[in-house]
């Protein structure tokens, strides 16, 4: 069951998108999300879609892979789509079944909403598919750096995040393994009442927690024995550097923002 989680998985590659500075990608993704909420009308959505499509094509991530990452929220998409379809009132009645009437406006709203959610998911997935978790936390640390002046523990936070990210796959594997081991002794995680199922989780959760604490302890020892003492005076092996492509990407992001704002006025 855990093997189905692909959300936030990194697919190594060497395309233009992969090579962009993670800070650029992070900023662009945030910008894209904000602009997505400004978009209104068919033309601004078309521009948004085109922009993301170009990025996806450049990254050589298969569309099927990208869309399968959106699978976990298909249910939400369908529900919001249906709600908007049936509850939006308008002038142009399309058809009417029993007491439910569907208007052209409803169809439009639902369509735009679904598109918006899909674009939102796909742009964040594109970020995590083309940027390793470590690069991401590096970028986050760099961007939050100004907060250090306010005594905000930026380094500690990003260290915690990169450790957590590093251990998620390990924990998933561990969960899988313990689950298999208990299943081999006849444990049943899939049937029974809610109460029974909750109880059936104990043979999984206890070894999982014991293991996680053991790991944390070992990691702390390993870090201390290599003289880790927080962010003070710590340098990076891989310095982040902005290249021409990064500036170009940022400019195109700005252009996208302007275009959408203008189209919104016009449309």
């Amino acid at each position, binding site marked *: 069951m855990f093997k189905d989680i692909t959300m936030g998985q990194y697919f190594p590659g060497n395309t233009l998108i992969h090579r962009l500075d993670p800070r650029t990608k992070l900023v662009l993704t945030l910008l894209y999300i904000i602009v997505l909420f400004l978009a209104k009308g068919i033309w601004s959505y078309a521009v948004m879609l085109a922009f993301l499509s170009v990025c996806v094509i450049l990254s050589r991530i298969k569309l099927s892979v990208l869309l399968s990452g959106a699978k976990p929220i298909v249910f939400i998409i369908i529900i919001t789509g249906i709600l908007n379809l049936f509850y939006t009132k308008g002038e142009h009645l399309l058809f009417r079944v029993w007491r439910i009437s569907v208007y052209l406006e409803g169809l439009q709203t639902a369509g735009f909403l679904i598109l918006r959610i899909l674009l939102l998911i796909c742009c964040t997935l594109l970020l995590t598919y083309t940027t390793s978790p470590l690069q991401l936390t590096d970028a986050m640390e760099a961007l939050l750096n100004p907060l250090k002046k306010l005594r905000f523990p930026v380094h500690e936070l990003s260290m915690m995040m990169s450790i957590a990210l590093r251990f998620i796959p390990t924990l998933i594997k561990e969960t899988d393994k313990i689950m298999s*081991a*208990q299943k081999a*002794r*006849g*444990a049943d995680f899939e049937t029974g009442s809610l109460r029974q199922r909750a109880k059936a989780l104990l*043979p999984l959760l206890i*070894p999982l927690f014991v293991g996680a604490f053991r790991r944390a302890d070992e990691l702390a020892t390993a870090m201390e024995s290599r003289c880790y003492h927080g962010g003070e005076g710590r340098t990076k092996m891989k310095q982040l550097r902005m290249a021409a492509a990064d500036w170009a990407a940022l400019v195109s992001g700005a252009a996208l923002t302007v275009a959408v704002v203008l189209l919104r006025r016009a449309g």
Partner: protein
Amino acid sequence: MAPVIQTVNLTHVYSPGTPFEQTAVDNVDFAAERGEFIGIIGHTGSGKSTFIQHLNGLLKPSSGRVLFNGEDIFASKQKTRETRFKVGLVFQYPEYQLFEETVYRDIAFGPKNMGLSDEEIDRRVRDAAGFVDISEDQFEKSPFDLSGGQKRRVAIAGVIAMKPDVLILDEPTAGLDPMGREEIIGNIVRYHNSGENTVIFITHSMEDIARIAGRLVVFSKGRIFMDGTPKEVFSRAEDLRSVGLDVPDITLVMMKLKKLGLPVDDSVYTVEQAKAELLKLKGRGKDV
């Protein structure tokens, strides 16, 4: 009679349709008879662990079938579940799966899931503990307070308590000292001899497996590369090396001796056999 466990054209592909797609088990035909003691060896990543997880239905084959006593174990959910109890699987580092408050209750977990009566459970726990030399005064201890070797023996007892017809162990001696390894191997041999039990044993230690297995199956790149008696397998030292394995040290010694011109049999693989060979030489006297 049908083999107790058998695979037909078994193939397993991990993450199909993604960039990480990997065929871990590739078209494997394998059969084990009642009472056999089989060693599985193979280089890291050769698909041993993936393979054995099919034998009790934990992994579903991408294609191919798994038969227990001639019947497909995936025929129904019921069948798969029954097979879990008949084909006991001990994972690598099984001590990390202990979870109960006491040793006794941890060993009883499997039998309890089988829906046995309390008396039967009690009998099985005591029997299983006996097999692995866990004494009754340890029953009320927390499994987390035991030593590493003891923990592992408790975990193995937890599977033996289900009285499986086929007992499969994935590297049961990994990470133990020689004494701990010796104990566990003794325990497993004891279980094997206690009835018509089949044992399948994955290991990286040629020394261990050479002494106890009647048959060796060598995996390489998801396929069965060799299958035969230890004598047959270890006589092909070159082939073994080509797939990243080696023969037991004592076989190496005998091969060297033979190269040096001594008339010894270089396909022996235990110290006892080697000793017998060398004594034979001595008996022959001065011509050496």
